[in-house]
């Protein structure tokens, strides 16, 4: 077996982190994307820009601010301690919080585009057919935005798997708690264990290729997120 127990632990942790992050992002990102797609408020610009920040910021910058905010003296850290959750830095919960922020634009933007593409008409038709706004959202908007949800899920998952800088800043490098695949590869290379680094890196390469293949082949020629 080319992958040892710590490699498998890192893979399992990565899958767990990416799945949980994607799930949370779909729940949190859907209302944000819906609001961004429909609002005429002046806040649309600032909120859209904040959501898109992780696209341009180095992961170390996000990680640094999260480390400060989540730390024992940060406002989020104070809050988690007041709630009896203790400190979440250097823990799996901290990684989830960081990943949700880091992967947010990869979920919100495809959803926002999908919602925008539906337009006003199907909503008006549903309203004249006596469907309440919530009824319309569930039975018209969600089915029509299905391709957007698929794209958002795949990108959110894949981008979290590819995370490194934020993890290192706020998660540290604790086996089975915060040591994900990308960090494990870094460790192997640092320790000159190139053979093991090869196996893990190769697995990531194949995985990433397959995810993108699924995404692009599945969209039948349509641009993936525009």
């Amino acid at each position, binding site marked *: 077996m080319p992958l040892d127990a710590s490699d498998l632990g890192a893979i399992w942790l990565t899958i767990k982190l990416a799945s949980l992050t994607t799930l949370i992002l779909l729940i949190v990102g859907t209302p944000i994307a819906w609001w961004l797609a429909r609002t005429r408020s002046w806040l649309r610009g600032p909120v859209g820009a904040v959501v898109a920040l992780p696209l341009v910021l180095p992961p170390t910058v996000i990680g640094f601010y999260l480390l400060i905010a989540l730390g024992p003296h940060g406002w989020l850290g104070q809050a988690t301690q007041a709630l009896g959750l203790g400190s979440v830095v250097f823990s799996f919960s901290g990684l989830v919080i960081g990943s949700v922020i880091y992967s947010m634009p990869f979920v919100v933007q495809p959803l926002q585009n999908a919602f925008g593409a539906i337009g006003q008409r199907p909503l008006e*038709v*549903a309203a004249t057919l006596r469907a309440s706004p919530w009824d319309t959202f569930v039975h018209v908007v969600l089915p029509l935005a299905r391709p957007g949800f698929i794209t958002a899920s795949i990108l959110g998952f894949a981008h979290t798997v590819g995370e490194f800088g934020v993890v290192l800043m706020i998660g540290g490098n604790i086996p089975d708690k915060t040591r994900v695949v990308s960090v494990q590869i870094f460790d192997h290379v640092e320790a000159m264990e190139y053979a093991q680094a090869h196996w893990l890196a190769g697995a990531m390469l194949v995985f990433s290729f397959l995810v993108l293949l699924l995404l692009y082949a599945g969209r039948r020629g349509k641009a993936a997120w525009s």
Partner: protein
Amino acid sequence: MTASIVARLNLARDDFTLDVDLHLPGRGISALFGHSGSGKTSCLRCLAGLERAASAYIEVNGEVWEDTARGYFQAPHLRPVGYVFQEASLFPHLSVRGNLEFGWRRVAAAERKGRQRLHRG
């Protein structure tokens, strides 16, 4: 005369202002006609609640649907209207039957007219 439709609307647009004061019979068929761009669609959209006029009073057969003076606006899905849009507006994610049943299922059983059940083929 209570069985009637009253619609007093003032809807300001960029290039014109729609200002109507309609009293229509509450039964039978009434037709709105006029030049293209004269506001027929806007007027009907206001009646259906799809458009918010700056000032509006809409009353249908004794029931007030909208009264901006009192800040009252009845949501479109609570107004018992049937609306045929100018362009084809079917739901692309539903079958023919799904489209037909969408509205049918959302009307109270006692108010359903025509066939009691859509034919199952």
